[in-house]
């Protein structure tokens, strides 16, 4: 098969890859996304954590404040790098703590929100406010940006009311009884005002799926989308179940549609007389994540960015200290693609940006050096040494902070801090310096680092510094 060319190649079609590609396209460069498959975005919570507090307790500090207080203080955290870059660009020398407000992070968040709004998947939230959501087992989930169907369940905005939990028989991803029981405890621990109460959890048959032992989220979502009458039926049932309970809100499983969520919830709200919202997703499969993935893809298409999927980049050839051409496999065929600049947004263990091989970790395309949270190189360290002795440690297992180390311009660097390749950038979950499972900033890091990587990769080829 014939080879072809693109100006900038972005590898990965998750939240980081697509955000980077959109930024590159907006700067006028020709960009193509190459992706092996879906990664962690499609199975993620579908909400964007920018900066979560270590302990979730009301009142929640806004992300802006937490970035400056918590994240920027860790010198190798991606946010700290972004702030440093900004200061360098502006010639600011003062490293005072009050000076940690970042224009770049704020621009990246605004751009992300605009992009999502452009494709009719608006997300609510900002850097000035952290939301408190209920997740599918009734525990508290802090996040910064969420679609309206979820954001309506932001407990910081519900000053008074009673929440009833309703789910569907056979749908094992959300048990309203469990959720309700746990929420009773959660609300005390996070310090919810007494005026906000959790009511009971109730199961009901989903219209058309009566008597089912197993019911998938996608089946519920599709049925609600296809026939408007279904939402009416569900709404009436919810109204009946809530009667006499004094409920004002209803917490539903996070699968109330794919394309028509708002329509479905509006109908359910009208029929039941309650304010319906979707709880936060906890485990895959995630309809919220799937919805976000589709919205991101729409948004790429809208700006003319082509997503080549499934095009698996196997290798990238190197010439001097430049990346040259990629060996790509698509189906039964293989070919080469030349590019001037490359953005690695391949994710971590789920996306396949980092794999475990022979008991250690590896970056499969270029075998890049990998680092842990403390900047120690780990390419030949046994995975078992990167595990904590606790099963679920509050700081996360160290192995989940392993990634590529980058400089302020998002260029992967060696252990000496030198850029490895002059025309390569990395962003998103493949970066080190934060723990993907516990830092509370995963998607936030993705949208901000990809914004910076995109800005840098959009610049024409820079000559190697002699």
């Amino acid at each position, binding site marked *: 098969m014939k080879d072809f060319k693109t100006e900038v190649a972005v590898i990965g079609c998750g939240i980081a890859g697509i955000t980077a590609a959109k930024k590159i396209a907006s700067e006028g460069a020709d960009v193509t996304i190459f992706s092996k498959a879906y990664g962690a975005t499609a199975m993620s919570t579908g909400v964007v954590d920018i900066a979560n507090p270590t302990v979730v307790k009301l009142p929640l500090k806004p992300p802006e404040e937490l970035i400056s207080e918590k994240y920027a203080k860790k010198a190798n955290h991606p946010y700290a790098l972004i702030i440093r870059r900004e200061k360098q660009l502006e010639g600011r020398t003062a490293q005072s703590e009050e000076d940690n407000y970042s224009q770049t992070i704020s621009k990246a968040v605004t751009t992300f929100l605009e992009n999502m709004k452009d494709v009719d998947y608006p997300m609510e939230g900002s850097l000035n406010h952290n939301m408190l959501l209920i997740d599918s087992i009734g525990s508290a989930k802090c996040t910064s940006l969420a679609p309206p169907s979820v954001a309506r369940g932001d407990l910081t905005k519900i000053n008074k009311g009673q929440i009833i939990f309703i789910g569907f028989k056979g749908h094992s991803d959300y048990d309203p009884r469990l959720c309700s029981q746990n929420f009773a405890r959660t609300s005390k621990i996070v310090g919810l005002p007494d005026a906000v109460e959790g009511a009971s959890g109730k199961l009901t048959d989903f219209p058309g*799926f009566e008597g089912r032992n197993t019911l998938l989220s*996608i089946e519920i979502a599709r049925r609600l989308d296809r026939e408007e009458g279904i939402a009416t039926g569900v709404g009436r049932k919810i109204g009946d179940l809530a009667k006499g309970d004094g409920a004002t809100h209803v917490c539903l499983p996070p699968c109330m549609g794919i394309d028509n969520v708002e329509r479905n919830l509006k109908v359910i709200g009208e029929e039941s007389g309650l304010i319906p919202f979707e709880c936060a997703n906890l485990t895959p499969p995630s309809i919220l994540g799937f919805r976000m993935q589709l919205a991101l893809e729409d948004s790429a298409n809208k700006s003319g960015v082509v997503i080549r999927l499934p095009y698996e980049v196997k290798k990238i050839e190197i010439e001097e200290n430049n990346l040259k051409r990629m060996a790509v496999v698509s189906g039964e065929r293989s070919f080469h693609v030349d590019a001037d600049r490359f953005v690695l947004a391949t994710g971590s263990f789920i996306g396949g940006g980092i794999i475990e091989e022979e008991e250690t970790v590896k970056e499969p395309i270029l075998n890049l050096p990998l680092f842990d949270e403390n900047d120690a190189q780990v390419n030949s360290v046994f995975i078992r040494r990167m595990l904590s002795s606790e099963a679920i440690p509050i700081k996360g297992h160290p192995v989940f902070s392993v990634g590529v180390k980058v400089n302020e311009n998002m260029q992967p660097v060696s252990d000496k801090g030198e850029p490895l390749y002059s025309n390569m950038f990395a962003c998103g979950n493949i970066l080190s310096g934060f723990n993907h499972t516990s830092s509370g900033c995963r998607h936030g890091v993705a949208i901000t680092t990809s914004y910076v990587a995109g800005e840098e990769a959009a610049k024409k080829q820079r000559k190697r510094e002699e």
Partner: protein
Amino acid sequence: MATTGKEATTQAASGLSFIKEKMKTLSLLENQPHEKDLLSQLGKCLNCGVCLPSCPTLEATSFEVFPGPRGIATTVSRVNPNFWDIRDLIYTCTECGSCQEICPEKVPVPKAASLLRGKIFRLRPDLIPPGHKEMLMNLSQHGTSLPPEDEELRSDLAESAMKDLALPYKKDVYKGSAQVVYFAGCISTHRAPEIRESGKLILDKLGVNFTLLKDTGCCGLPASLIGDMELADKLVKSVFDRVRQVGANTVIATCSGCANTLQAYLNRMGNNTGIRVKHLAEYLVEDVGSQKVSSLAKSKESKMKSKATENIAIHSACHLSRHLSRRIQDYVIQLAEALPGVQITTSNTRQKCCGAGGLLSIFKPDVSNKITIARLQEILEQEKKPEKIVAPCPTCVIQMNQGVSNSTPEIKVEDFAVLLARKIV
């Protein structure tokens, strides 16, 4: 009477050796290395369920009828399958590959379904669906998946089909030696002659030195979908034997299934034969150039009296876009865009299977039809309605035509080769 410990041990040992022997005769212990490899890839399933929205069968039925690709991967990889239990699961899979395309672990569900069909074929022939058996009879008797008709009748049908399209009819040409072999495949030879004839006309128009293969035969795909891997291999091998006989270095197919099966065979054999397999769209873009196709179409258009624009939707054929390579489906779109008088209303390369995949149309026609209707509705729900659906695969065309006659007669379905022939010949 109580048995002594020694006796019990002897009894147990003889029982065990009996079971071992029995399993050997059922060849239950003999997973070939490639089978082991495939099953271990299946075991990589994370159980994440990202694949569930992509499955056409799950979408058209329910979890209870078909638990989706995750169901196949988890059931089959976790335990040694009981064929009786998994039979429906395995034959209801369209093997379309939509799941594998987005799976983070690239779990090869379609290949696993084929592997298990192969095992059922060898070990439990009583479980092979009746429709599959019928097709197998055609394949082993005539070397084609459909019963061949009398040659004179076939060419008459082909001639009249071309007349309906206002296209010339050219007799079949069989050369002793040629650079290019045009492999027409069974469906376009015996079921949709206009596709086979269109392919001939296009290559003729472009001045390609090509020949058809005597007794075209089958690429082997249907045999492998039934599970008769030996027959499948024999059929595909026979195609390449005949290609070598005419000394050709390129095989062109209009059928996505044929193109993929032939290429996959070459890849499996180490890809060192010097023979290239190309889908028509790929040949036109890479060897001829879409500009030439476009200019031929423009010169034909300039001679036409009426210059009405056709609105078409392009359906994505699984064997092309998910199995052979997504790039070739992109070529189909690229070529269609280059044709004058053609407006593409939608060309989603991720559109799901038409419903005919994996011989589902034979195993469960009702489910298959539901899938087809879902595809047609998807296309008709678009803001801009097309008058025609174009697919680069005869199987999709026949399947969707059936769906159209069942549900939405206002739309027509046409093969990509026919569209091209109408535009440039």
